[in-house]
């Protein structure tokens, strides 16, 4: 579903991604971990069609990027630590806008259903600026999945969430997995990411240095693997 071959991204003379190869199968949940500056967000923005690679092949659902970005965009949704929502609009208006932008059919029904699924139906007419961080993140998931994308990209979605909100986000992500969506998530919370996903991929200085399937190691062993490959003594939560 997501295939990266020899992906390189330079900002001027600075190489951020240096020949990344990654294959994510349909329905797979992959966590991307690494220290700050490893190139995780750059990689995510390339897959999200927001950045163009310097060289290398990017295939999403068989479509090459950046040439077929319009086709790919129909099939991806992004949840970031930033809301990507309008604080001055109500929850319903935000979703209505994205339903219009994606030109979805049965827009009103879809918006109602999406709000209900994330438990925000009662807050439909409230401005997003009055929402808590947890509520905003639930609405962000509703926005990102409104057009029923095959691929969900998550860029540090747990940032700023308290424990209850994080648990709620876990259950929402599990529901998305059950729907068969392919999920690629960036997180600094190694154990949390490890427990949620099928596979964890360690990115260091613009290169994938190790891929570990969940069955291959225990969480403690994974922390050791992470430390060996990044040169950082790992705590359960690293970076920031």
């Amino acid at each position, binding site marked *: 579903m997501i295939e990266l071959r020899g992906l390189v991204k330079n900002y001027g003379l600075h190489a951020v991604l240096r020949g990344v190869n990654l294959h994510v199968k349909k329905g797979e949940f992959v966590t991307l971990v690494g220290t700050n500056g490893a190139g995780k967000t750059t990689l995510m923005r390339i897959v999200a069609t*927001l950045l163009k690679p310097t060289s290398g092949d990017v295939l999403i659902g068989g479509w090459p990027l950046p040439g077929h970005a319009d*086709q790919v965009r129909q099939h991806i949704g992004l949840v970031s630590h930033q809301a990507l*929502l*309008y604080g001055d609009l109500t929850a319903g*208006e935000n979703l209505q806008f994205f339903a219009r*932008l994606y*030109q979805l059919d049965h827009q009103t029904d879809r918006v109602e259903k999406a709000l209900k699924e994330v438990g925000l139906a009662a807050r439909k007419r409230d401005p997003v600026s009055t929402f808590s961080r947890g509520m905003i993140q639930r609405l962000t998931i509703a926005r990102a999945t409104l057009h029923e994308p095959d691929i969900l990209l998550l860029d540090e979605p747990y940032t700023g969430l308290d424990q209850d909100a994080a648990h709620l986000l876990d259950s929402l992500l599990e529901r998305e997995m059950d729907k068969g969506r392919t999920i690629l998530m960036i997180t600094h919370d190694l154990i949390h990411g490890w427990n949620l996903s099928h596979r964890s991929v360690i990115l260091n200085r613009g290169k994938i240095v190790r891929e570990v399937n969940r069955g291959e190691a225990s969480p403690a062993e994974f922390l050791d693997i992470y430390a060996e490959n990044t040169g950082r003594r790992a705590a359960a939560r690293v970076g920031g």
Partner: protein
Amino acid sequence: MSKQLTEKKSIFSVLGRSPYAAAVWAIVWKDLQIERHTKQTLSVMIMFSLSTVVMFNFALETNLDAARNVATGLLWATILLAGTLGLNRSLAIEQENRTVDAILMAPVSRSAIYIGKVLSVTLFSIVLEVALVFIFIMFFNKPLWRPQVLLILVLGTIGYISAGVLITSMTIQTRTREVLLPVLLLPLSLPLILPAAMAVASYMFPQTPTWGEVQSPILLVIIYDLLMITTGVMSYHYVVES
């Protein structure tokens, strides 16, 4: 996946609706909704314009003839400066919470996003201009409430905002965006404003000018509009993706 895409596209065909027009309308609808809730863009533009006109009126109070002579230039200067406020506000909204990323991830043409933004800021500017015309009639006693004058104002606004959305999209991520926008946009707008001001000035006399007298400046304004819209439509994806 491609099959799914084809199915989604065929829905548009069945509905007989242009996806491009729907994307443009989505952007305009969203900006109007935000303005309905906050009233920030229009109120700032109108307040700025009102205070500028009042200030000039007091400054030129002792010389009413001079005030009337500079009225057309002052009208355009006020529209341009208020326009930069509207442009900055309208594009800054997309930077808050990085909603611009969510818009750019939608499967819509970048030029549709550009046209949508141009339309929404132009709508706000037209509302401002209607208010300004009344203010100018009140303060300077000029015959501005004429369809021809309003048409020239609208044509001038379209060109100015078309150039403005493009420039603002380039400068919006810089720290000095408030300074950069007028510095880049005002010189670029000179070829538009000079003929537009000339055309409006022709209508400030009791007798209505003939088409031949205003033809050249109005055509220049239209040419500028077409040039800027074409440039925007063709280059907007470079601006937002680089």
